[in-house]
């Protein structure tokens, strides 16, 4: 149970795919023109992420190491196709709004990243919840960005009018440049909180860099901390 909770919080906060890992920038920038689109994209990705993580974890001992990437892609693409057909059939409005970005979930680096760094090395249940946690983190981030962009760029939130009548929408925010402005600002705020935390002497580095000391499962190739191999054959910080 603790493991599950840890995985969920990890995805939402410690290793938030958008604000911390900076993965999946393409859909993040492209579809967050409104809060609804952001949420829709996030949840769609979450479904694919959870299912593919579980499935890959299930097959992790069967898939030969050399062809694991093609195998992962086939599994992910199957789930994406299923989700795409379901969306087209049951939520056509969201399907139209997300457009090409639904099939592009296949190449979303969050999904492949989690398959490679977590699901292919861990049991089914934690992998499933890792997928759900990551998906929730992604949904949360996309909804945040989408809400800010929709509020400034159209004066609405989830389609409801929030701003007063006299508000003139600043429409650049629902166009491409607005995505960069909002993402950069939200990331800057997140970094500011991190720096403040470090100044207060709290060990925020573990939380914010997404490092739980678990070097074996770490996907951070830029990690510069010294590492050593412990008695169980796992890498860990020296």
């Amino acid at each position, binding site marked *: 149970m603790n493991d599950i909770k840890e995985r969920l919080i990890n995805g939402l906060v410690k290793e938030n795919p958008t604000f911390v890992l900076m993965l999946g920038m393409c859909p993040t920038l492209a579809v967050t023109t409104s809060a609804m689109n952001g949420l829709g994209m996030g949840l769609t990705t979450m479904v694919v992420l959870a299912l593919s993580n579980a499935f890959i974890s299930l097959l992790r001992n069967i898939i030969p190491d050399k062809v694991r990437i093609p195998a992962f892609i086939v599994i992910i693409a199957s789930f994406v196709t299923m989700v795409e057909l379901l969306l087209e059939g049951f939520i056509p409005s969201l399907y139209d709004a997300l457009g090409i970005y639904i099939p592009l979930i296949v190449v979303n680096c969050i999904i492949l990243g989690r398959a490679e760094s977590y699901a292919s090395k861990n049991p089914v249940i934690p992998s499933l919840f890792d997928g759900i946690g990551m998906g929730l983190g992604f949904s949360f981030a996309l909804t945040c960005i989408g809400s800010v962009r929709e509020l400034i760029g159209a004066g609405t939130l989830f389609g409801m009018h929030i701003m007063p009548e006299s508000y*003139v929408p*600043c*429409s*650049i*925010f629902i*166009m491409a*440049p607005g995505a960069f*402005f909002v993402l950069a600002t939200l990331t800057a705020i997140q970094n500011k909180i991190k720096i403040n935390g470090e100044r207060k002497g709290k060990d925020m580095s573990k939380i914010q860099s997404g490092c739980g000391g678990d070097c074996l499962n770490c996907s951070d190739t830029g990690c510069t901390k010294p590492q050593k191999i412990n008695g169980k054959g796992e890498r860990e910080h020296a």
Partner: protein
Amino acid sequence: MSDLMKVSSNPHIRAKSSTSSIMLAVVIALLPAAGFGIYNFGTDALILILVTVLSTVLTEYIFEKILKKKTTIGDYSAVVTGLLLALNLPVSAPWWIGVIGGIFAILVVKMLFGGLGQNFMNPALGARCFLLISFTSIMTNFDCDAYTGATPLAALKSGETVNIFNMVVGKTAGTIGETSMIAIVIGACFLILTGVIDLRIPGSYIVSFVVFICLFSGRGFDYAYISAHLAGGGLMLGAFFMATDYVTRPITVKGQYVYGILLGILTGIFRIFGPSAEGVSYAIILGNLLVPLIEKATLPTAFGKGGARV
């Protein structure tokens, strides 16, 4: 050897000009255009100019206070940015357009990249394009008490004839500072005579623009059409005051000609083939983005390296 030798590093000969003296010269050079804009459009224009300048200066001051940096509003660069931005706004724009534009120009385009000298794009033009995309209907509404109807360039684009004399004097619709060619040229002459700018960029810009118009407008060398294009819109303001911005122009001499010709061609493309009548702002900020490449390609050979040996 009792004399104390003073050793200092170069440069040993310095010009008297400083950032603030150059910026002050630009402010003075912009006054004729601003003055004519106020005369032409009334006190609304004055209020908009004041609000915009106040917004840029205050943004810079507050930003530097919050970040505990040295206050640099004394170099007048924020005043120049505010003034240029205001001259690029239509007089019918509400006051908050000036405020938002001023904040965007200083905060996003200038300070976030490291302040004066580090900005890769002209702040006033960056803000103008931001406003143009965000509030298209406000920014392209040139109706005011004095004038209604299309700007000369828009009329020209739809095939109507325009009064060139009015365009040269400035009695037309348009943004506050762009209408009067005479006022802008007076300011430009002041800058050229005081040595703040030279004719390399404006000259190559305007000449290449004229050549482009002759070649591609489908009218050949139509004197009236060309002079309407020169006097209309923001070409003069852009060529003399914004393309020559010290920070965002190439520093190499060859590069400045390349930059000017590039701007002329881009402006021609935007005006003739683009959907809107005007294209100076976009041409200049696109040119700004290419400046590092231009400089790289036109780097002069250092003294003593290469070349013929005598």
